[in-house]
């Protein structure tokens, strides 16, 4: 068995089997990666179109179509991640105008202090500084308890919780009163599920203040341009 030729032959056969197995694995990886890449390429335009339709539907929920006459989807600027809005990625600010006059800003924000994870929001802030409406776009709050922040899950169908912010601005409700009642503020929460309401209320207050502060600049930027980064603004 210690014949050096025999050892060499065995080693070469081990090597051969290893290379063969690795080649098969590589082959499978290539074929199935190609399958995924092909499907991705094939479905990309359709997926992008439905994502855009979904965005348009969300914008329509916070911004009544009668208020503006421009193509909001086209009149957008790109916003780098903003700490105050809780956004991690580039997002968009859509500008609504009527007869060329600024009407409202629509943008996304997020609350990171929900009961379980991130709560995504979309807000429409009128040019006069009032919050037209906001909606929860994604959340993982407890079903049946904290999920009333989404009007589809709210048991109060005539006046869902999220609508109490409609039409209010920082002149009607001072910044330090833009909190839930439990924190000494102005807005209702449901007992037993304060955390969800607090997260949405505080995030909407921060987002509203940000929009009011940056309003003129946000309306003035040309469409599809990039808003200055947080750091560059200083």
């Amino acid at each position, binding site marked *: 068995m210690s014949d050096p030729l025999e050892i060499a032959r065995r080693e070469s056969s081990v090597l051969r089997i290893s290379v063969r*197995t690795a080649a*098969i*694995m590589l082959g*499978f990886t290539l074929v199935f990666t190609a*399958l*995924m890449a092909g*499907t991705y390429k094939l*479905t990309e335009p359709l997926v992008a179109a439905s994502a855009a339709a979904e965005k348009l539907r969300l914008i329509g929920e916070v911004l009544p179509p009668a208020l503006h006459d421009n193509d909001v989807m086209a009149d957008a600027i790109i916003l780098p991640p903003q700490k105050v809005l809780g956004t991690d990625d580039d997002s968009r600010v859509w500008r609504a105008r009527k007869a060329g006059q600024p009407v409202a800003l629509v943008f996304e924000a997020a609350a990171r202090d929900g009961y379980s994870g991130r709560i995504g929001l979309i807000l429409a802030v009128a040019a006069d500084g009032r919050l037209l409406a906001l909606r929860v776009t994604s959340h993982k709050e407890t079903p*049946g308890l904290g999920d009333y922040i989404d009007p589809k899950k709210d048991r109060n169908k005539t006046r869902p919780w999220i609508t109490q912010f409609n039409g209010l601005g920082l002149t009607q409700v001072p910044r330090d009163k833009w909190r839930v009642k439990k924190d000494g503020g102005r807005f209702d929460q449901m007992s037993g599920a304060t955390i969800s309401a607090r997260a949405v209320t505080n995030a909407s207050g921060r987002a509203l203040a940000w929009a009011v502060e940056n309003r003129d600049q946000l309306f003035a930027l040309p469409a599809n341009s990039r808003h200055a980064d947080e750091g560059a603004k200083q």
Partner: protein
Amino acid sequence: MSAYKEIAWNGLWKQNSILAQLLGLCPLLAVSTTLVNAVSLGLATILVMMLANFAISALRALIPYEIRIPVFILIIAALVTVVDLAFNAFLHDLYLVLGIFIPLIVTNCIVLARVEAFAAKNGLRASTFDGLMMGVGFVWVIGLLGAVREFIGQGTIFSGIEMIFPTLSGIQVLPEDYPGFLIAILPPGAFFVLALLIAGRNWLEARANRRLLEKRLHEHPPVAPATA
């Protein structure tokens, strides 16, 4: 029992992925908060299990034994991605409801378990049928779990159905002022209800076995040992 009958019986009851094999509990417990959510995940799982069993049964001659597990995982992950993209592109309305569940299926080890235990050794038709039956077995148990948790937790049934059929709406079974029983919806509630379902299955099995034994004893009474 014919081979197909046996596959069906294994999937639905005897080797049921949840009640007997206790596989795939992670997505099971996370998603079974309502009946509609649970059945939605279950339907997506059926689709992926059939596809995975079909693909691996078809390719089984090409997969070396030593690296079968990585290849299986690769194929399952690729199929789930393709299903996810295809749903998003071609069935977008359904995707808005089921979309969040499809990636969860990769974490469901029942898919890998059936591929390894069945599809790698059996023909195309039997394997696809096994995927279907294992999937149906998964759906009825996760659906029951979701319905019980929803009923105890919220006092409703079919809540969220309007996401799939906009004309329908959930049914409030218990009175409107039912305060809800939160623990049924939280993860511990899933364990409690699942434990009761498994106990129920074991009880039924034990009873069936005892009856079988009694019947045998009746037909062939044991011969009294001869006294020496």
